[in-house]
């Protein structure tokens, strides 16, 4: 990654008493795919609008390629934006839509024609040049919106939930397409979504937001395997969270005592986690091994026993819902790939659960 392409410092935005965006800092590198992820109202769309210049911040700075554009108009920034419902101009044909940004840049007629065809070929729709947006399917409109954005090679492309209106199959297909275009062009992309799976598949880095601030910024693996807070652990993928107290720490490993008595090992990536600290023990469902009866002592992480209360086959994964024998604990979930010849479980039977230290994470809070 080379020099930073987009630099945000101390940017904040309030609407009356409501803090849409607490002061945040963010650096996006040239050619990076950064996703702003978060629940609705977390400030991700506000941040995107501030970058695009569609809203004005109360304080802070936005720099694009080193130039301060904080209060500049959208048309003065070297950006492109793909809107949620595509925002194709209904009174212009596909070709007119795609040539619009080139006309704004006073590109001559011949170069415009060539570039438009190139962009349409990139999204595999050159045959639709003469159509109107309303004559296209949702997926096709999405591709045209992409083409309209790429045709003038802005240095940053902003995407506001661009796949939100598409059905699952089409969405998966478009994710691949956007990834391919990103690779081919090497443009910086800032992508907004509330779909954690989409964020995981597409991003170089994810900026997970909550209540107007950044909850955690890092690679998808960082966020998934080393969540810094319960919010992050909960938002990305399913997780079991057990109350526990730290009893000892050596390097990245801690010894903790889970509520109810069991002593187990876990990883701790946060320096504040030391002796006596109350933590949450995070265990991902697919990392739990399932045993008939109590598990043997050869497992280095920890063990629990629990009663099976429900079984759900969700397609590729089978989920077991269990109630630990320790009272006041939330139900546990264990998951494994569905297979037809696998063993059968019965509701009400007691099962043993175990895990590896590397898969258990202690989170402050």
């Amino acid at each position, binding site marked *: 990654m080379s020099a930073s392409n987009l630099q945000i410092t101390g940017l904040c935005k309030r609407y009356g008493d409501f803090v849409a965006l607490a002061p945040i800092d963010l650096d996006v590198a040239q050619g990076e795919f950064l996703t702003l992820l978060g629940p609705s109202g977390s400030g991700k769309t506000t941040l995107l609008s501030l970058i*695009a*210049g*569609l*809203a*004005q911040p109360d304080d802070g700075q936005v720099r694009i390629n080193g130039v301060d554009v904080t*209060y500049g*108009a*959208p*048309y003065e*920034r070297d*950006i*492109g*934006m793909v*809107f*949620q*419902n595509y*925002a194709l*101009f*209904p*009174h212009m044909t596909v070709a007119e839509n795609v040539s*619009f*940004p080139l*006309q*704004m*840049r006073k590109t001559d007629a011949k170069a415009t024609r060539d570039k438009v065809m190139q962009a349409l070929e990139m999204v595999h729709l050159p045959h639709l040049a003469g159509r*109107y947006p*309303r004559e296209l399917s949702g997926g096709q409109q999405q591709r045209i919106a992409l083409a*309209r*954005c790429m045709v*003038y090679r802005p240095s940053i492309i*902003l995407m506001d939930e661009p796949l939100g209106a598409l059905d699952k199959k089409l969405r998966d297909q478009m994710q691949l397409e956007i990834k391919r275009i990103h690779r081919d062009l090497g443009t910086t992309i800032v992508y907004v979504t509330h779909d954690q799976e989409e964020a995981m598949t597409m991003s170089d880095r994810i900026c997970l937001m909550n209540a107007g601030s950044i909850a955690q910024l890092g690679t998808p693996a960082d966020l998934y395997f080393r969540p810094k807070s319960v919010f992050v652990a909960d938002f990305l993928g399913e997780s079991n969270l057990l109350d526990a107290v730290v009893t000892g720490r050596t390097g990245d490993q801690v010894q903790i005592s889970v509520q109810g008595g069991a002593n187990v090992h876990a990883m701790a990536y946060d320096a504040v986690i030391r002796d006596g600290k109350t933590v949450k023990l995070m265990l991902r469902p697919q990392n739990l091994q399932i045993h008939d009866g109590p598990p043997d002592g050869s497992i280095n992480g920890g063990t629990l026993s629990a009663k099976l209360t429900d079984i759900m086959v969700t397609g590729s994964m089978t989920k077991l819902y269990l109630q630990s024998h320790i009272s006041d604990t939330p139900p546990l979930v264990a998951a494994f790939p569905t297979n037809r010849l696998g063993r059968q479980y019965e509701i009400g039977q007691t099962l043993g659960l175990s895990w590896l230290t590397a898969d258990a994470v202690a989170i402050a809070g």
Partner: protein
Amino acid sequence: MSAPIIVLLLVMLVYPVGQLLLLSVHNSSGFTLVEYKRLFASSVYVDVLLITLKVSLWTTFFSVLTGYPIAYLISSLTRERKNRLLFWVLLSFWTSFLVRTFAWVVLLGRNGVINQVLLGLGIIDRPLSLLYNFSAVIVGMVHALMPLAVLTMLSVMENIDRRLPSAAATLGARPGTVFWKVYFPLSLPGVAAGALMVFVTAIGFFITPTLLGGRHQTMITQLIIDQVMQALNWGFAGAISVLLLAVVLLVFLIYDRMVGLSTMAGGSSAARGPKQGGRWSRKLGDVILTTLGNATDAVIALFPKRRKRAANGESLTLRVVVILLLVFLSAPAFLMIPLSFDSASGLAWPPHGFSLQWYRQIVDSPLWMQAITRSMLVGIGTGILSMLIGTPAAFLLVRGGMKGKAAMLAFILAPIVVPRMIIAVGVFYFFAKIGLIGSSFGLVLGHTVVAVPYVVITMMAVLRNYDTRLDLAAHSMGARPWATLRRVTFPILSAGLMSSFLFAFATSFDELTIALFSSGGLSTTLPKQFWDEITMQISPVIAAVSTCLFAFIAVLIWVADRLRRRSLTS
């Protein structure tokens, strides 16, 4: 379900208007074209037609031009602020043409506000004669019809996706270019619809030209009144009506060719798409819009740049312009209030002291009191009858799966399309034959014909928003059709029903044209009484009546708005 409305329209619209048109080519000796020969024999009537067209075109032009920024600003605001601005437009829209025109008579008079202010400032030393000329008519007509233009354009502008201008800005377009190349073309169907509504209304107007115009501003509807009331020449009135109707239909035809009538029924422009003009006209339009965009941007660039830009579509200039326009729209009626409490009788500005004498005169006058009572009764009757006839028709048009819905809707909307004057004369002729002149029942029938299309349109809009699955849910829980209607459908629709009732009531309460002929000599309606007074002499009593009407309308709008909000929150 639609039988009542069809019967009503056949008896009260098709038959009377048909009769009138027939009279124009038929006299005691059979078929004749003598009336038409007379119409075109001298240039008198052709000149009147040309003046009518000229007044209508200028009115349309200025109404759309001034209405556009208002509609643009209102469509861009948040709900709360939108309602606040919209109130002023609605207040003007619903305030009687009579009240507003009378206000201009007072404003522009020799001792009126404008002359007094100009004299006071020493700009002039003799009062100007501002009344009874072409400009006075245009000012009055634009003032009367601008709210209609705003509301029609607004319905299209509200459907324009607000992200499109943002998208254009991110793609590199400057504000002027964003407006002319993206927003303006998308708002054109609204402009066209607004222009059509204003033009068609203007061409059938007689109140403003009669009160504010001179001899040279006589319009075609005034000719019809003369023929019916003074000359008693039905055949010639019929011939003029045919001419007027032909012009209106021609305008609709041109509109349909160029824009498409379906955009009138609230269909968004995007869903239908622009009618494809020729390749060259498209190119030409593009060049013009590009030039306008560049020119606007060049002008904007002349102004110093502010560090913080205003939010979208809310530039200070626009807000100031809109506020000035709204003041123009509302101020005349408000000026009636101090004048109505004046102790002097000249309606001169400034008022000379406080007195309630003019209000007492209204209360003491049996003429005014009877007119008020009658208007109330006829209004309520019209409201009820229109609901009874219009609601089933709306149900059928929205829910029913029959063929020819479009034709049916066009038929129901005919009373709006056909100039009111033609209906009024036809109904007068019909009532004269069956002895219904002067009866309240006749007036209710006449008013229902013109009110029922509004009820149908309002109810159709309400029904389209109604989730029919709620009915199915009630059925599934064992409710029979009547119980479903009573316990589920009507309670949810009640606000919509109430507002269409108010619409019909207000239409009747403000109706002058039909009442002009058919309300009979002794007991009149309020607008007719107003008209008789105002054409005889201009007295502060009228200012007092105007103030009452104005307050009444403001309360009605407030109540309707409350009802609408309640239906939204429930």
